[in-house]
């Protein structure tokens, strides 16, 4: 338990540093920008309460916002992501799995489940993020294209990180 909490804190710090020190300067013009820091919300233990999840998502968002000078934009997107996470876990996992304190990582879950989870969560977060950043529904097509291309970029980086930190231990049975 304590180990998992410490792991999550270290993961949070490393991902935020990666995001603001390195990936902030990486983008294909203004079209595709990667945001793999969302991994630290996605990989929180399965069994945490909804309020804890929303609070942590809010804090993650506001940390990134402080570095990006975009107060509220990442925060809103992270809160939306947290809500999606609750929804997705509810419809795909059994009750006993949901209540365990496992990390929903590649090593612990099936690849099919993990990839669907990452793909949909990233897509939701990015669409909310780019819509709020523009703050209008004008040029909605351009915004969606930016969100989609950024999603691909983000997912590529998330899978590289997942591969590098892969461990097949504690495999829990999955439906």
């Amino acid at each position, binding site marked *: 338990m304590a180990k998992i909490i410490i792991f999550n804190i270290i993961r949070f710090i490393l991902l935020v540093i990666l995001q*603001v*020190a390195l990936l*902030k*300067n*990486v*983008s294909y*013009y*203004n*079209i595709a*920008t990667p945001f793999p820091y969302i991994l630290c919300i996605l990989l929180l233990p399965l069994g945490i309460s*909804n*309020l804890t999840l*929303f609070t942590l*998502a*809010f804090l993650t*968002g*506001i940390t990134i*916002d*402080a*570095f*990006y*000078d*975009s*107060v*509220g*934009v990442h*925060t*809103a997107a992270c*809160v*939306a992501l*947290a*809500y999606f996470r*609750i*929804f997705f876990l509810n419809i795909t996992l059994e009750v006993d799995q949901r209540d365990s304190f496992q990390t929903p990582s590649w090593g612990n879950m099936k690849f099919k489940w993990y990839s669907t989870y990452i793909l949909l969560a990233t897509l939701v977060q990015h669409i909310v993020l780019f819509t*709020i*950043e*523009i*703050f209008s529904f004008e040029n909605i097509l351009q915004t969606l294209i930016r969100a989609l291309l950024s999603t691909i970029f983000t997912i590529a980086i998330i899978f590289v990180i997942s591969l590098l930190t892969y461990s097949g231990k504690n495999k829990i049975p999955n439906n």
Partner: protein
Amino acid sequence: MKNLWLFFVRFNAFFWFLLFFTFSIVLVIRNNNYQQSAFINSSNIFVGTLYTKFNSWQEYINLSKDNELLTAENAALRQRLQFFEDSDSTVMPAIKLTMDEAQYEFIPANVINNSISQKNNFITLNKGIKDGIEPNMGVISSNGVVGTVLKVSENFCTVTSLLNSATKISVSLDSTSETFGSLVWGNNIDSRYAMVKDIPNHIKAYVGQPLFTSGYSTKFPKGIKVGHILETDLTSGGSFKDMRVLLTTNFSNLTHVYIVKDKLAKEKIELESSNNNNG
């Protein structure tokens, strides 16, 4: 009553979502409308210090290029200095300047955080209230304009970059010309180009013509180079036309900048606001 409570517990995720999401949207709107000094931005002490750390590593990568730029600027300044030194020193100057010192003071600063890939880009500098920086001061680099100071903390300040939809800088077509327009980034995704808007239709401009700041605002002195015209006569449909500009400032590689302090700014603003009061 019990049923209501059960209803809230059952859909607690949704209600938490509504609460947190509304709060963050309020943050976005507040920030969009007022630009007031919120604590959460990159000029606060924690984020500023961290960016200084990151930057101290990045600086090494650009070191040789920066040196080259600074040497070039030194050479240009030396050349201008020569012009003054060569004049006959035995002749006493006939004209006495009415102003004791120069109107503008240039405060050198280091860029500790910079972005060019966002929709609205900001820069963080390592100078703050301690060094006499105030909001709305202009920021220039050795080869062009950079932006305007937005928020100031004790040791740091954030700058609205030219690559930001909020920035509008008054420019003139030649340093002597009487034509004025406003420089904006426009809907660009490239940090090298910007647009000049509101140039009257009868003005003829040629490709490669240099653009300078007009000196109408208190932010920038007159005659600082901004860029060259790349495409002229992009019609915007009215009696004004737009032009595309190649900027002289290289935003992707910005390390040393100068903050422009106009010593007479307060006087000018006071005078102009008294005009408004009477009219």
